[in-house]
């Protein structure tokens, strides 16, 4: 199993880390340079982490486990009005990015109110494309428990709800709940607010880990990170994308920011060194985001092999 790791250290000799990860069979997902500092998000084989730790110690760098690395999280506000944005919905989305997640923020068309709150089939399909959904809801317990569940009751992905009251157990249909994170009209920088954000990251990480364990029982035919590597090597057009993350990794696949009608064939024809093509081990679907491509890797139980 690959562990999501974040490396923070100096630029000096950081290529040794990248080389080590590649030698160990891990993947470098993203490298961000900040003047003389570098932050590398990577996936490292679980049993070899100690080697990485030794190297990091030698280079005086910091290694942390970043459970949100390589995941695609969607943060959902009831609407895109100033009642919810930029605080607290954007703050939640931004905070999770610091832990390696790729977060998308959407506002529903008619998610407000109690009796009138609703979600459309298109919104639901879009949310189901992601690994986990975080609903940023409001202040009142009655609304959270008795009314707002209509927004997430039919979703297939795990849903984490945030709101003001401290609830004994999550609202019905929700996977988990994080309190003290309801409607707030200022930037979340108070101590208790940051604590709440940390609890949210912890909860999301825990839910993702549970999902990872679930996937490992019937492992995917290949790692999403390997597909990312092959796309970068075999479809040079992806390197021309201006998007901050042209390939967004997910737990069970990836979203590729290329046009579906134009590049479906090319993506399906990607060949691995074991001799299989991508069409044999994954389904390539149109994404709900623009005309992008969604890749869903098939599990071992379907293909009969793992590469």
């Amino acid at each position, binding site marked *: 199993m690959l562990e999501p790791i974040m490396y923070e250290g100096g630029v000096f000799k950081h290529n040794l880390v990248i080389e080590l990860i590649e030698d160990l069979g891990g993947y470098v997902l993203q490298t961000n340079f900040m003047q003389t500092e570098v932050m590398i998000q990577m996936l490292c084989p679980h049993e070899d982490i100690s080697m990485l730790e030794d190297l990091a110690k030698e280079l005086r760098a910091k290694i942390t486990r970043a459970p949100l690395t390589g995941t695609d999280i969607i943060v959902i506000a*009831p609407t895109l009005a100033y009642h919810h944005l930029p605080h607290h919905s954007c703050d939640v989305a931004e905070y999770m990015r610091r832990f390696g997640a790729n977060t998308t923020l959407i506002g529903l068309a008619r998610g407000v109110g*109690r009796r009138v709150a609703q979600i459309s089939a298109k919104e639901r399909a879009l949310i189901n494309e992601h690994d986990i959904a975080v609903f940023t809801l409001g202040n009142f317990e009655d609304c959270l428990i008795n009314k707002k569940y209509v927004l997430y009751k039919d979703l297939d992905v795990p849903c984490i709800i945030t709101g003001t009251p401290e609830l004994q157990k999550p609202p019905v249909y929700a996977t988990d709940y994080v309190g003290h994170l309801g409607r707030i*009209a200022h930037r979340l920088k108070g101590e208790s607010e940051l604590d709440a954000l940390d609890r949210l990251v912890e909860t999301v990480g825990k839910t993702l880990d549970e999902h990872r364990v679930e996937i490992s029982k019937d492992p995917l035919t290949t790692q999403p990170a390997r597909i990312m590597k092959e796309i970068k090597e075999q479809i040079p057009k992806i390197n021309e994308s201006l998007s901050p993350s042209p390939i967004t990794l997910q737990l069970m696949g990836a979203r590729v920011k290329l046009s579906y009608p134009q590049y479906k064939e090319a993506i399906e024809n990607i060949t691995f060194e074991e001799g299989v093509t991508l069409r044999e081990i994954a389904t390539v679907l149109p994404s709900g985001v623009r005309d992008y491509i969604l890749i869903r890797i098939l599990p071992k139980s379907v293909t009969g092999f793992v590469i």
Partner: protein
Amino acid sequence: MKPLEVFRVESPDRAGAESYESVIRDVLADLELTTVLGRLWIWIDPSEPVFIFCALIRTGIPPVYVKDMADISTGAPSVKQVELKLTNEEHVSTLLNILWIEYGRENVSQPEKKVITIDTEDKDEVAEKLADVVIADPRREIESRLADALLRITPEGFRVRHHVSTGSEMLFVASEDSIKPEWIKKAEDIMDQLKEDL
């Protein structure tokens, strides 16, 4: 009445009310309304669902007239123009716009930074009339800011609204269902209590 001498946010859900109070404080601070409101009482019952907002507005700043920002003179009898010597430059752009509309661009000129002249045949009448023209009315601006604050504070789904607004008080009831007479009655009771010992 002192700024926000009464500030109550009440609800059967106590945690919700406390959090709502923080939202209201932020919105009022963002829109610079903390010194404008004297007393504020908000009642929210999500199970009804109803949102009631009652506020007493502090009597604010008077409107700004042309005579407050300029000395108006007609000069020598042979000169057919009115001269404005500006004492306060804060609202000059608004003043120029008003003068252009009223007297035409070709008749209004600004030879110096603090001098505006208007060419006219009957200068005495113009000088007299001009003195009492309102250039800026902070009270109207406050009303629009207050309306903005109300829209930001009210729960977003509560789109059925009832409001009574006079220069010194604001009563607002919102819900997502039809407004019930008892809610308006409750709002009026709250307003009466707010006005006690004024």
